[in-house]
């Protein structure tokens, strides 16, 4: 394993706990994170079959408040915020002027004019700076208040078919029920902790994300373990989301690709009015796309496909793309990946080859999701 300079790497409040549990740690987005404990395969299957708990303390939390908050955010994000009820959340994207993705995130309406954004760890500063730039005028007029509260929160993602049972055990008698799918609830726990519960996740299973005060991170993590969740690391987080074709910012999503090219048109409401990046997207919708993010599955036994491996025309043909994501699917026991393919190769059933260390392995474009 490579030696990294860890002087700039931050630790979540659970760092010591992870080591006690035997985690293999590595730096991710400037944070020391658990990659795996018992093993990626077993952690992955634990989430698909029971429940797993992930440390997501590195993720970001931004509050947006003000009488113009909803209207302003609708001009900055792709999905329709104005349609949210209080307590409801939605997946959405923040674009640059060229329609490229700055970040994908989940936004929750927590009040009449108050919203809670959960953003990717690697993009917290970029997102906040962008929002400040966009709000500049409104801030001067006193209309938009932005707060980056990322440092205050620790976070856990509890995912799997048994997630509800896990919460019931964690919450105890006075805990209350989890919010319904895609909704948010703010509760005061028995010990006085202010908790934010979001019924969402990145694994394709039922589950929730719990944000608690950083000082209580170990307490709630231990409760999740005691309630039967398997500790799971970023390795399993990646295999789980890839099986569902959920894109990963920095791999499948970046500022060079639009959400339409990524297949996320459902989360882009062109008809709601103006928003940053709308013009480019409207043109793409009218003219058609040149490239699309496709799901690719290996059709022969071979090495796992990995990000940046070449995607090529069959029979030793030329390279047409590279994988943006890739790996071995623990559920399917086959290689899966995603890549932006030129439109004429993007149809389901298209035969391609993956270049691994100079050798070609057959694959094909398949429907999303993989499972």
């Amino acid at each position: 394993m490579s030696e990294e300079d860890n002087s700039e790497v931050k630790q979540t409040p659970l760092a010591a706990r992870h080591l006690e549990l035997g985690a293999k740690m590595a730096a991710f987005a400037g944070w020391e994170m658990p990659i795996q404990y018992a093993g990626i395969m077993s952690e992955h299957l634990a989430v698909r079959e029971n429940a797993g708990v992930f440390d997501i303390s590195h993720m970001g939390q931004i509050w947006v408040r003000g009488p113009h908050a909803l209207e302003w955010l609708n001009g900055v994000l792709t999905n329709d915020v104005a349609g949210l009820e209080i307590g409801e959340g939605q997946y959405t994207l923040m674009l640059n002027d060229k329609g490229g993705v700055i970040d994908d995130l989940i936004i929750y309406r927590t009040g009449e004019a108050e919203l809670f954004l959960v953003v990717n760890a690697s993009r917290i500063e970029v997102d906040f700076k962008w929002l400040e730039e966009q709000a500049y005028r409104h801030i001067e007029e006193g209309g938009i208040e932005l707060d980056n509260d990322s440092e205050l929160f620790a976070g856990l993602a509890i995912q799997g078919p048994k997630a509800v049972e896990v919460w019931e055990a964690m919450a105890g008698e006075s805990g209350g029920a989890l919010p319904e799918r895609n909704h948010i609830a703010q509760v005061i726990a028995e010990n006085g902790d202010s908790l934010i519960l979001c019924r969402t996740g990145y694994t394709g299973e039922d589950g929730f994300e719990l944000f608690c005060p950083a000082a209580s991170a170990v307490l709630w993590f231990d409760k999740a373990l005691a309630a039967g969740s398997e500790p799971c690391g970023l390795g399993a987080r990646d295999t789980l989301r890839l099986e569902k074709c959920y894109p990963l910012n920095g791999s499948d999503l970046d500022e060079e690709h639009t959400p339409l090219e990524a297949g996320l048109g459902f989360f882009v409401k062109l008809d709601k009015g103006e928003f940053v990046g709308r013009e480019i997207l409207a043109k793409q919708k009218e003219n058609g796309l040149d490239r699309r993010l496709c799901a690719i599955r290996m059709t022969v036994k071979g090495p796992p496909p990995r990000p940046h491996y070449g995607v090529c025309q069959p029979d030793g043909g030329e390279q047409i793309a590279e994988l943006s994501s890739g790996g071995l699917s623990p559920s399917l026991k086959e290689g899966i990946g995603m890549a932006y393919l030129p439109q004429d190769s993007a149809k389901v059933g298209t035969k391609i080859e993956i270049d691994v260390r100079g050798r070609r392995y057959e694959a094909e474009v398949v429907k999303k999701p993989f499972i």
Partner: protein
Amino acid sequence: MNIPDQLKYAESHEWTAMSDDLATIGISDHAQTELTDIVYVEVPEVGRVVSPGEPVAVVESVKAASDIYAPISGEIVEVNEAVQNDPELVNTDPYGEGWLFKIKAEDTSQLDALMDAGAYKTHIS
């Protein structure tokens, strides 16, 4: 951590077992523990002539592909078919069924450049 006494070890965690001029090579218990679940093994072609430090095989875990280096010079005379079908053997039996390839050694004195069990134990601690 299992570090059999009779083997020689490279810094890059390959073990070598000598029998006359036939060297059998695999990866150590320490290496397979670090890699965790091994899902794919790529062995060199029989007949290939290799030199010390040359990457000749690849062992892949879920997370990463790791190069395996020839510890000595010579010709690859045999490769392990079993691990290609059942990569887990490298995890479960790294010094036995999990061997990777065999080299007909050109110069057995090259073994002196490798570590013995004691030195390897120090190296990994």
